[in-house]
């Protein structure tokens, strides 16, 4: 099951610094929404508000509403929200103390699943889902950090999938990877769209154009333009968007 996200008048701060200003937008079910914009414009902060990671930073503050299938995310227990909205980070961050298979099901296990056969089965399932199973089936007991960068990132995606989220947030998931690994992850993201709602931050406009259904352009904490990807890249309505996608700044 996947879900849609609705953001209404979202404002976010780091201390006194106002980094998101009245952002309102909807992310559709089973679609890939890309968020683009120059560095520091608030892309990471925006997705971290959705799974309530923003508030874990001291001094950070949020106002506004975010609905997950009409359920107000900020009225719920953040721990349960985070299990329903998974996240993949900019740098691959498998747990260094855990093996490949332990990493894959770390979330499940830490959330209380004890049954070994359930865990082993789930590990296989999610590693297959991210196309890693054939590559690592003989290295399941090696540390997760011994894999290549691209494999580590797919392991992190598998780890997020194992918790069975409805929405997956990705923060520039390919920015630390080589072109071949990037391609593989883009393919994977495109396939995941069938079962999940995906929101991906990227500074790579070609990537946004290749994989996303809708694109949002954020600039200095404001949502400047949001629409179908093809339309936004071919016929931007706002001049800032036009300048950004034609590479004249940022």
């Amino acid at each position, binding site marked *: 099951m996947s879900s849609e996200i609705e953001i209404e008048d979202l404002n976010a701060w780091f201390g006194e610094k106002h980094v998101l200003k009245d952002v309102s937008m909807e992310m559709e079910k089973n679609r890939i929404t890309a968020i683009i914009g120059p560095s520091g414009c608030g892309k990471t902060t925006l997705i971290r508000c959705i799974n309530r990671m923003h508030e874990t930073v001291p001094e950070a503050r949020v106002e506004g509403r975010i609905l997950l299938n009409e359920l107000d995310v900020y009225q719920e227990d953040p721990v349960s929200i985070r299990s329903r909205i998974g996240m993949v980070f900019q740098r691959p*961050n498998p747990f260094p103390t855990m093996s490949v298979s332990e990493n894959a099901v770390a979330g499940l296990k*830490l959330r209380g699943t004890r049954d070994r056969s359930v865990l082993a089965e789930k590990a296989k399932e999610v590693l297959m889902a991210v196309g890693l199973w054939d590559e690592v089936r003989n290295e399941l007991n090696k540390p997760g950090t011994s894999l290549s960068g691209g494999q580590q990132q797919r392991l992190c995606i598998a780890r*997020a999938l194992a918790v069975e989220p409805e929405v997956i947030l990705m923060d520039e998931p390919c920015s630390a990877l080589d072109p071949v690994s990037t391609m593989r992850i883009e393919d994977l993201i495109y396939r995941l769209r069938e079962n999940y709602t995906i929101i991906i931050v990227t500074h790579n406009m070609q990537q946004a154009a290749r994989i996303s259904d809708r694109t949002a352009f954020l600039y200095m904490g404001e949502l400047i333009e949001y629409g179908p990807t093809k339309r936004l890249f071919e016929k931007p309505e706002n001049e800032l968007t036009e300048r950004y996608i034609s590479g004249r700044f940022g």
Partner: protein
Amino acid sequence: MNLRTRKMKGNAMIILVALAFVIIMIPLMSMLYMIAIRGIGAISLEFLTSLPTPPGEPGGGVGNAIQGSLMLVATASAISIPISIMAAVYISEYRGKLSSAIELITDVLSGTPSIVAGVFIYVLIIPRTGFSALAGSLALSVLMIPTVTIASYESLKAVPNHIREAAIALGVPKWKTSLFVVLRSAMIGIGTGVILGIARISGETAPLLFTALGNMYWNEGLLQPTSALPLLIYNYATSPYRSWQAQAWGAAFILLVIVLLLNIGVRIVARKR
């Protein structure tokens, strides 16, 4: 400055450094040498396993002191390790209102002279319970807790934040993240701190003088006074009896070997990093 004077200065520095090295090594090596030479002779199965004989009588051993030391160190560890790790998790992961207070107390305690730890327990506990192994362990804990807390805190701080975020973002509650992810990542550093803490307290005499007191017989429980290697060394070395003085060297040798092994243990654990 020409090449020759520069070379001469360089050589002079090398000689100074070598000299400093020798000056440091002389007392260390002669101490090890002396303890080994005088100590090894005293070691025998009887020495390791039997009770002391009355003063002046030959034979006997330090079995009860070894027993007592093991008991004191084990009990102090059982008290200190959980408290220290919990305190470290609290100040590093929760940064609550009490964090800076605990940090300050820990820093001050870590500089406390060991005799003060003994006096503290003596005043606080001995009037109620009398001398006991437990009181000795508590005095040792006063010394061990800051060492282990500081080492654990430093190792927890060194765990990169992205590890915490990865767990939190999976929907893992904060307390589980702290205990099962962050703490696990810091285990090597904490293990090193624990071994160093144990090495430190195994040689302490002062905190035991008026808590564990000493005992000529086997210890039969935590609530009785107990002998311990450092106590026995102190008593025997300052006694007028030849045989006891010889046995003090033997006991010193055992203690030295234990501390040496613990330090080698630290190296082995730390190399796994």
